[in-house]
């Protein structure tokens, strides 16, 4: 018997939480963006695990869409970051303090 699905799901939940903590604590925009990818991957793992547990293909199809969305988001997001920070020396969100809370 293979490892029970709940183990995978707990692992995915931990990865997701790590991503959330990363976004809220890190200031480097690239790392913040990587944390978003981390969260999406945790979701992928969840989908695949449920897919196996329910013996249903829909979860795997969902991962497929997440991959497409992630790719499009990365293209636009990195384009945005380059456009914003091209003329700046460092890439931290602290530089962006013109608008305050």
């Amino acid at each position, binding site marked *: 018997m293979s490892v029970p699905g709940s183990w995978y799901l707990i692992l995915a939940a931990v990865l997701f939480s790590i991503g959330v903590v990363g976004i809220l*604590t890190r200031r480097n925009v690239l790392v913040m963006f990587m944390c978003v990818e981390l969260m999406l991957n945790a979701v992928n793992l969840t989908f695949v695990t449920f897919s196996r547990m329910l013996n249903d293909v829909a979860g795997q199809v969902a991962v497929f869409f997440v*991959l497409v969305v992630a790719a499009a988001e990365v293209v636009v997001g990195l384009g945005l970051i380059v456009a914003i920070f*091209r003329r700046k020396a*460092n890439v931290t969100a602290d530089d962006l303090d013109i608008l305050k809370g």
Partner: protein
Amino acid sequence: MMLATITTPDLIVFVVSGAAALVGALGVITLRNPVHAALMLVMTLFSIAVLFVEEQAQFLAAVQVMVYAGAIVVLFLFVIMLLGVDHSDSGARDAIRWQRPVAFVSAVLILLEVSVLARTRWATGAHSTTAKLTGSGAHVSELARSVFTTYLAPFEATSALLIIAVVGAVVLSRTSRNRSPVRETERPESVGGSGAEEATLGSTPEVRS
């Protein structure tokens, strides 16, 4: 008791790649150098691909490696190189102090919500509503069938996403290049654009008279 029923190779694969995924994820959020963070991200993504194989999703594992490690992380590294590696971010230098507690509280909330509430029963849903995952070889064909039948609508909609990605990349790269020409070609009476320009116009006597 539960451990006894799990075959050793499965257990080893899960523990090793699960640990690698966790270490990678922690590396992403703690390492100061973004290049190291990106490499740690690769480790996590690769471990997740291994877990996909372990869960009989071989095709997705291959796509995961190609799309994430092959395309997305490479893009990240390109951008890091383009903008220059920035060492000043330590993670301790928080501009907004409330963020850290909020971060941990929300992380704990998500963990509690997901793992405590579920107790023992996770997948409470109906089985095989879309299509069964039969045998190991037929996954891909079953996946393809679902994409072109049940999920035809979102599949076609993703084409719009790809167009947006192309147009968006073009627009973003062009606005950053065109910045100065736009300013120079401004007519004197149309005072649009940036604040700096308004300042110069504001102090010009001709406009004032």
